[in-house]
């Protein structure tokens, strides 16, 4: 019971940290600080996975977010007028629309949480190695099409963004 309570306290703590760093993303006036805050927010979500004994997902989330936020920084350097991220800039745009979108998103998320049928609590959590094996079978089975489509879409977006970032020129480097 004590273990359960400690787990709940830490879960709430990291949940709060994730939300707080999410707010910091828009409160700061620096692109780099914003990116780092987003990273910490996502890392806190990864720690929540670990607390819920989803070892593979937790470690993966913590790893991927460090690299993803850094790749985001690469695009930031490519596109922004402030390449080094040293200058200050406003992190919020289209405020009225953003507020409405955020509000509707929040209500929708809360509705899903309250109204969805989550089923009974799993009594025996499979071991970490078993979870990884189960996840592998899921990804290469039923969910393969969804993940492959998502992966291909992201890759296409990245290639397109890189091509847009390259200034059109006829001179060849070699």
């Amino acid at each position: 019971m004590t273990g359960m309570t400690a787990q709940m306290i830490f879960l709430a703590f990291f949940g709060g940290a994730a939300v707080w760093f999410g707010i910091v993303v828009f409160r700061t006036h620096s692109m780099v600080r914003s990116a780092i805050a987003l990273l910490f927010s996502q890392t806190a979500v990864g720690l929540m996975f670990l607390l819920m004994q989803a070892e593979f997902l937790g470690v993966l989330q913590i790893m991927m977010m460090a690299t993803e936020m850094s790749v985001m920084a690469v695009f930031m350097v490519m596109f922004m007028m402030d390449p080094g991220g040293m200058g200050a800039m406003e992190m919020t745009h289209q405020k009225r629309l953003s507020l409405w979108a955020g509000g509707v998103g929040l209500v929708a998320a809360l509705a899903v949480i309250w109204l969805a049928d989550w089923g009974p609590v799993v009594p025996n959590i499979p071991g970490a190695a078993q979870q990884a094996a189960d996840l592998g079978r899921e990804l290469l089975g039923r969910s393969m099409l969804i993940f492959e489509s998502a992966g291909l879409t992201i890759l296409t977006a990245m290639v397109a963004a890189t091509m847009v970032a390259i200034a059109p020129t006829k001179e060849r480097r070699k």
Partner: protein
Amino acid sequence: MLLLVAGVLAAAVIPLAPGLIVTDLAMGALFLNAALAYVLVALIMAGWGPNGAYGMIGGWRFLGQFIAYAMLIVMPITAVVMRAESLSTVDIVTSQAALWNIAYQPLGFALFVVAAMGLARLPPLDLPTAPGDLAGGIEAEYTGVRLAVLRLARMLVILALAGATVTFYLGGWLGPWLPAPVWSGLKIVLVAGLMVGAGRLMPRVREARYLELSWKLGVPLALTNIFLVGVIALVVTI
């Protein structure tokens, strides 16, 4: 400080002998990757933090270098994990009892060591902290205790990477006559020494060139390595 934490966490899943490991996670190999990913975050922050041009350029240079080495750290590990059929570092060592991975997948070993040198900013891949080019790059604005912590953390990362190389490719603690921890220690010191020493004999590699080599040559080679290991694992039982 984050760099120091990343190094310590990465070293925590390196087994020195059966039972002699800080924590034997079922996701050890993945955890090692996760810890090493924060080396990048730490160095970008260290470069950007002092608000100086040299440090900032050094930090972003390291990010460019990361794009080059990242896949070549992960993909060879994938092949190692395929053979061991486990992400646990202890299982990875025991899977090499009959034949070390350096002989089983030499291509993966070569790619991993070069990528590890990129991660540790070792010559010839040390442009983010190059003394002659950026006055120290990421380290340019630091002095005293802060510089000492930065350098200590780098040494720790080098040792963790040498430990990872030994665990993944050189049979970890396995070896005749000597006790297991001695074998681990000897191998780690040897690999760390080679990584630190070998690159000093070569000219520095520009990031653009490193990126080009990594993606046009390294990634196809790493995919070939995964394919070969898959075929061998299916056909032969070693």
